[in-house]
């Protein structure tokens, strides 16, 4: 069931358009990640959903009702079904209990139930017994978790998390991811903004990539990673080999593109003579052993010289290869060892036709 729908939402600050006709929907129980660099409009979008900002045009539907047309009590009632956790949470003066109780008190929850729910929420974020601590004396990490508890204690239908892990170290980040998992167990729908590709992919049921206020692509992690629609999405999700070229031949849904001196054959329809942009992930660059005969399967064969070998987190090594086609290739370590590759050495590689994507520029 659809919980939230944005229709053609735009937002201008003065003459600067920070959001441009963004349409997006969120299913109940879903976790949507908004991925994009700083200044892409992620936070503004969240603030519009949370009614902290009014869009210049467009509609925001929460369970089918346009939030922008509601007023007074009715609006307050709907707004109380969602909550936002800011990137840099602020604590109210007073103790932790006062902070967690605030949202419940404005909802006229009996104090007795507030006590129970506050205790429960503190336990969920691993801060049991912190009720009487002065909220202003908490460390950054503690305040972050209290901010999560302060939101969860309201049992909202929709939680908006604005860059919850930016500038956290991996230890704290894992902790926050654990809390997010608990939110999902409780059936809360979540929208989370991040500029970390990996986080967006790991956490999101779907990912929306924002760039300069425009929605570049929305899709499952697999769709976004393996079928980036634009050059920007490709670069932002780690497709680091991107070339511009001109189609020289186009037959039967395949075409040949000239990139500098090199000819690249790929699946995809583009008219001859067209200027195109194409990309391939570094893992899809295959090194070819030259001591066995080349099979016909290997299209797009190129030679090059290894310039640099750096380990990637994992058993992969990243090779920078120069030649007619400059590429970065991520290759399993055992392959590199078996082929005795080293900087300065020659290498033959192939680009798999079905892994090369045509990208909008």
């Amino acid at each position, binding site marked *: 069931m659809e919980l939230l729908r944005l229709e053609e939402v735009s937002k201008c600050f003065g003459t600067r358009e920070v959001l441009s006709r963004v349409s997006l929907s969120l299913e109940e129980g879903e976790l949507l990640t908004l991925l994009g660099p700083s200044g892409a409009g992620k936070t503004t979008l969240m603030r519009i959903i949370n*009614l902290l900002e009014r869009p210049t045009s467009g509609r925001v539907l929460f369970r089918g009702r346009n939030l922008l047309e509601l007023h007074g009590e009715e609006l307050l009632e709907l707004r109380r079904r969602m909550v936002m956790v*800011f990137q840099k949470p602020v604590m109210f*003066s007073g103790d932790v209990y006062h902070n967690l109780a*605030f*949202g419940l008190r404005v909802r006229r929850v009996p104090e007795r139930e507030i006590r129970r729910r506050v205790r429960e929420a503190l336990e969920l974020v691993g801060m049991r017994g912190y009720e009487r601590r002065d909220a*202003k004396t908490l460390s950054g990490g503690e305040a972050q978790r209290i901010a999560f508890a302060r939101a969860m204690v*309201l049992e909202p239908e929709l939680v908006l998390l604005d860059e919850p892990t930016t500038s956290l170290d991996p230890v704290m980040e894992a902790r926050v991811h654990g809390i997010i998992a608990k939110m999902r167990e409780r059936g809360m729908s979540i929208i989370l903004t991040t500029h970390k590709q990996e986080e967006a992919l790991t956490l999101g049921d779907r990912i929306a990539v924002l760039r300069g206020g425009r929605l570049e692509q929305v899709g499952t992690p697999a769709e976004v990673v393996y079928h980036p629609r634009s050059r920007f999405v490709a670069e932002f999700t780690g497709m680091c080999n991107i070339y511009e070229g001109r189609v020289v031949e186009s037959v039967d849904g395949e075409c040949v593109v000239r990139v500098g001196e090199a000819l690249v054959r790929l699946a995809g329809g583009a008219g001859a003579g067209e200027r195109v942009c194409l990309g391939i992930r570094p893992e899809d660059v295959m090194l070819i052993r030259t001591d066995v005969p080349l099979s016909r399967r290997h299209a797009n064969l190129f030679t090059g010289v290894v310039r640099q070998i750096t380990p990637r987190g994992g058993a992969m090594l990243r090779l920078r290869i120069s030649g007619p086609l400059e590429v970065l290739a991520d290759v399993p370590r055992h392959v590199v060892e078996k082929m005795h590759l080293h900087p300065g050495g020659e290498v033959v590689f192939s680009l798999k036709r079905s892994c090369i994507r045509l990208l909008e520029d």
Partner: protein
Amino acid sequence: MEYLLEGIQRALLLLLSFDPYVVSTAKVQLMVSTSAVVLAAAAAIPLAVAFCFREFPLKGFLLTLINTGMGLPPVVVGLVVFVFFMSKGPLGFLGLIYTKEIMVIAQFILAFPIILSVSISAINAVPVSIRETALTLGAGRREVMMLVLREAAFGIITGVLAGAGRVFAEVGAILTVGGNIAYSVATEQGMVTLSKTRTLSTAIPLETSKGDISSAIAFGLILLLITFILNLLTNYLRRRYAGGAAQA
């Protein structure tokens, strides 16, 4: 030097024996200045809230006006009040010249813009993120306002104390409108001088010029005590809230 020590000694004696002149002068000071501060706070704080939570035309201009008011020399304020209330002035029919009431009015005008201005600053200094956090947690307009007031409480109290500081030891305005008047009555102990509109602060220059250093010192000591208490309160609040403020 001996003369000085003697003066101090006699001043302490005056204080400890509850000399009627000293007591009545201190009473006038406390009554006038406290009334002025309380009234000014009662008027300024709600106005500050309205100022910060409502949009209206000429807001910027008003703020400039308030800040100018804060910088007005007390003696000029006294003069203006005097001119309005003097017998031939527009409010002269009220007959308030040289009464405690007009002293309260003058000091009210001194305290009001400070309390208003500091309160507005304090409320505006509450980070927008506090308001927004309250909103996102589901607070209504009134609840946001109460929360912001709570966060600004320290600043507002500081403002009231600053108003008190400006008013309690002030001479120019109170001298101009009050006239520094005392009168003598016959009692069983003989003739006794009592204050009508004389305050600690206006009595000091008068007594020194008359050569009654002991009375001047006695008045000075009481004034110091009041200032000391106001300072203590301000410092206590600063220390109590400084940790939180530094965090925020």
